[in-house]
């Protein structure tokens, strides 16, 4: 057999011309791979540092006073000094966010499933989901808080309204995108509605759903902040919205930015967590998560 004869793996150096081309290619490939594996961590960091330096320079060059745009150093200092207040507030906002996201997922997926079960049901009720999405929270918040006595439930409802639509919309799309051959197969094997949903449509919808979830993650955070605004939680036990509001009224802008940075960082962390989740769930089979050669 051929391989026994050709045991010298790093093979013969024939035809130097040809050889060199391959070598250059291989070397380039190796180099690219090396750069990539380093870049994977350093580049984002470098960009982060650059962004911060740029922010700092912009402040200095344009002589921007700290009550308009504080320099990053000052924000970092504030973040450090005010950590106890800020992180307590963050925790509260985070709680609302996570609860809202959870409810958004349950509500969004639940509605999507209902909608795909019956076209007529979908046609009748989808518009109201859209209505919920486009209604300015600020305008209907009084109504919500009038009839829902628990502030927490009211806030959850507000954040949910903001966050649920992407989950609903993407999941519906996904449920309808199941491969038609597989759908036929399920029909033939006499799958019940529920089985088709469970074993075919839900897995097919997963990538779409996870996409919607990543959008909803950010929206839930915004929703939580907006909900705090309209619920007007003052005093102890209040979240980041309160901090931003009051600090900006008092022109304690460094603290506003510290709070904003916390929100932004939280958003990024939520996004990365959801991306990781998505990767873990899809890496075995979906195009978007598969590592491919070349």
């Amino acid at each position, binding site marked *: 057999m051929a391989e026994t004869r050709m045991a010298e793996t790093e093979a013969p150096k024939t035809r130097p011309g040809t050889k060199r081309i391959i070598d250059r290619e291989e070397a380039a490939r190796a180099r690219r791979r090396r750069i990539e594996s380093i870049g994977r961590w350093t580049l984002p960091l470098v960009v982060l540092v650059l962004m911060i330096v740029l922010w700092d320079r912009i402040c200095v060059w344009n002589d921007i006073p700290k009550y308009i745009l504080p320099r990053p150093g000052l924000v970092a200092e504030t973040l450090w000094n005010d950590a106890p207040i800020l992180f307590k507030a963050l925790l509260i906002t985070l709680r609302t966010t996570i609860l809202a996201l959870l409810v958004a997922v349950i509500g969004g997926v639940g509605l999507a499933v209902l909608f795909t079960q019956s076209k007529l049901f979908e046609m009748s009720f989808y518009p109201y989901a859209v209505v919920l999405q486009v209604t300015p929270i600020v305008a209907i918040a009084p109504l919500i808080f009038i009839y829902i006595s628990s502030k927490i439930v009211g806030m959850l409802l507000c954040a949910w309204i903001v966050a649920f639509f992407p989950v609903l919309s993407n999941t519906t799309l996904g449920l309808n995108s199941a491969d038609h051959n597989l759908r*036929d197969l399920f*029909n033939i*094997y006499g799958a019940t509605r529920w089985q088709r949903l469970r074993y*075919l449509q839900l*897995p097919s919808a997963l990538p779409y759903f996870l996409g919607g979830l990543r959008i909803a993650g950010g929206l839930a955070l915004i929703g939580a902040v907006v909900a705090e605004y309209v619920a007007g939680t003052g005093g102890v036990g209040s979240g980041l919205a309160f901090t931003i509001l009051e600090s900006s009224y008092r022109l304690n802008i460094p603290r506003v930015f510290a709070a904003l940075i916390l929100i932004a960082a939280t958003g990024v962390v939520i996004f990365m967590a959801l991306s990781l989740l998505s990767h873990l769930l899809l890496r075995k089979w979906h195009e978007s998560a598969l590592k491919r050669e070349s």
Partner: protein
Amino acid sequence: MSLEGTDVAATDAVTKGGATNEDGTSEGAPLLTLSDVSKVFNGDLVALNGMSLQVRAGDFVSLLGPSGCGKSTALRLIAGLSHPTSGKIDWTGGQGAGDLGVVFQEPTLMPWATVAQNVWLPWRLRGKSYASVKDKVLEALALVGLEKFAGSYPRELSGGMKMRVSIARSLVTNPRLILMDEPFAALDEITRHKLNNDLLALRAKIGCTIIFVTHSVFESVFLSNRIVVMAARPGRVIHEVAVDAPYPRDEEFRTSSAYAAHCRAASDALHDAIGD
């Protein structure tokens, strides 16, 4: 009552439908009857034109014909995946939605499930846990030579392996009726022969009815007792070749002169269908 009388006569005509010799091997009760079934796509593409066919329990019917002649369409109609534009498909004994195994022309595997999970599917849809049917799943996989790949995902398989998973899935429940659309096209001849034999053995064991689409004249002759030859544009039945060799058939049959004669007949019919 006179009405009923005419009907029976008409049905008989259907039974003897197609062009040629209905033979003795078709002894079972009528299972399903296609009466003048047509299928038109997009209003003008006649995929199937007035197909009539009666399949009896225990039949092994092969559909043979050029690409695009409506074989898959006919199978889909029988499977109830699509409705005839005109004509009727009658099931006797309400078998319609019942105990069916199917192999599509494409492997049609769930990309998110392992090979074993894919084969488990028909059982799963009948509410069986994996543990309770694990033996059957592995047995079916062994039949197609994939027991070592039970834990692989479809994307890790070669084309022929995917198709074999699909075949294993169609057999795992020992169904009474199996529809197969070119199941062995992606396999080498030796594996193909082996699976042909296995399929016949299975058929002998569980006594199932099989409707089988193939491009191979040899395969159709070796496997079936009836070969329905179709022509394209519009898709229609133009011949029916009865293969009256008794079952069980084995490798010996492949070398018999009867086999060669049948092959010639089927091949001629196919040439006829292609019109050259």
